[in-house]
């Protein structure tokens, strides 16, 4: 299992793990990551988070703290960064205007560049990269729609989707093998 983001582990890692002081700048440079530097660790994000309410291992405040401290490997390899439901409650209530939802997205994007990706997200992204949607266009859907009196869904122009996605890193990112969990 990758190391999880628990306070005690973060404290231990401060002595043992290599700290990357540039990590926070890396995150801040990502689209949507800029506001990370305003965090003053009040913990309102954690208090308001619906995931945290039911799973005490998930602590958005700690994800931000560990990022600011430069614990790059721990943050990027942690499985908790995939738990955010993107409900934006933290973003709404942060007194410092820290856009946590966007920052977690930026951290996920960086994690994927490092080869860490949650299989569920990989599945969805692969579907979009191939079919243009999360579900493949299938004839039975149009039959069902026809029975209900709905017009058919026109097929996605896959070649156009493939062409525009060639301008991104997505193909390369999805090809990266998931890091073995030890």
């Amino acid at each position, binding site marked *: 299992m990758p190391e999880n983001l628990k306070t005690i582990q973060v404290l231990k890692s401060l002595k043992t793990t290599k700290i990357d002081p540039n990590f926070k700048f890396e995150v801040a440079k990502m*689209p949507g990551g800029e506001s990370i530097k305003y965090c003053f660790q009040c913990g309102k994000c954690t208090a308001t988070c619906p*995931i945290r309410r*039911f799973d005490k291992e998930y602590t958005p405040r700690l994800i931000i703290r560990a990022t600011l401290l430069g614990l790059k490997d721990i943050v990027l390899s942690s499985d908790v960064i995939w738990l955010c439901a993107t*409900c934006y409650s933290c973003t709404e209530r942060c007194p410092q205007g820290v856009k946590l939802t966007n920052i977690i997205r930026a951290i996920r994007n960086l994690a994927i560049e490092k080869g860490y990706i949650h299989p569920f997200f990989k599945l969805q992204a692969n579907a*979009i990269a191939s079919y243009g949607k999360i*579900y493949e266009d299938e004839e039975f859907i149009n039959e069902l729609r026809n029975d209900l009196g709905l017009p058919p869904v026109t*097929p996605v122009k896959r070649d156009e989707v493939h062409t525009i996605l060639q301008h991104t890193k997505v193909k390369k*990112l999805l090809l990266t093998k998931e890091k073995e969990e030890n």
Partner: protein
Amino acid sequence: MKYVYFPGCVTPQKENAYELSMRKVAEKFGIQLLDLEGANCCGFFMEPIDHLSATLLAARNLSLAEEKKCDLLTLCPACFGHLTKVKKELTEDQELRKTVNEALAEINKKFEGFLEVKHFIKVLLVDVGITKIKRTITKPLTRLKVVPHYGCHILKPSDELKLDNPENPTLLDSLIKATGVTFLDYMEKRLCCGAPIIGVNEKLSLRIMREKLRSVQKVKADAIITVCPFCHLHFDLNQFTVQEEYSEEYNIPILHYTQLLGLAQGLSPEELGLYENRVPTDVILEIL
């Protein structure tokens, strides 16, 4: 009123009753819907992977809709939110816009940024208006007691979506009240349904839904009213799993808002796809 209809991924695959009832309700207001041929995923599901890819996917959809020269209408709050945010980002960030348009040029498309992205709820509330909605109500549903489930992405981030105050939302409340039902408030009104993490941690996702269901059951509501196809799917399909997991009984019917409105407009259950819902809706029809 004319819009280009953007279906997204979830609605045509899993929640055709939502589109069916929306089209029936839209007819009552003389709303004309144009098809959007060849559209792709809005880009929302690509966000965690790569921001630029997510932006490009959205920009292609927006440019397709712009060719129709009218505003875009969707039923999915995630599509609504993502397309709205991308439109704003491409309007503010000229460098990103240049990159995006270079990629779009290869498929002979261009993002211009003139159309507005609208969720059907916004169309009802702003373009149609409560007064006009009330005029179409022929069968006020006075005996029915319902609660709203807003979902997250219709309201937040509020500074970008500018639809309602997420701390005390009222837009769906007022639309529901217009149908003449008995409107109930409940403790967990603002809680997420848990659907977005179903693929990451199923137990946790169901645990969150259970909390919602318990809170709805406490106020003895006959149904939960949704505006999001994904929230709807989660409540309507996975409610059975929650009942099994926790050995509890809920059987709370989940109605798309458009189904509720349609019933109050005198449309039949068949016309509104009420029998497509997974949690049986017979109870509702008996109450009416």
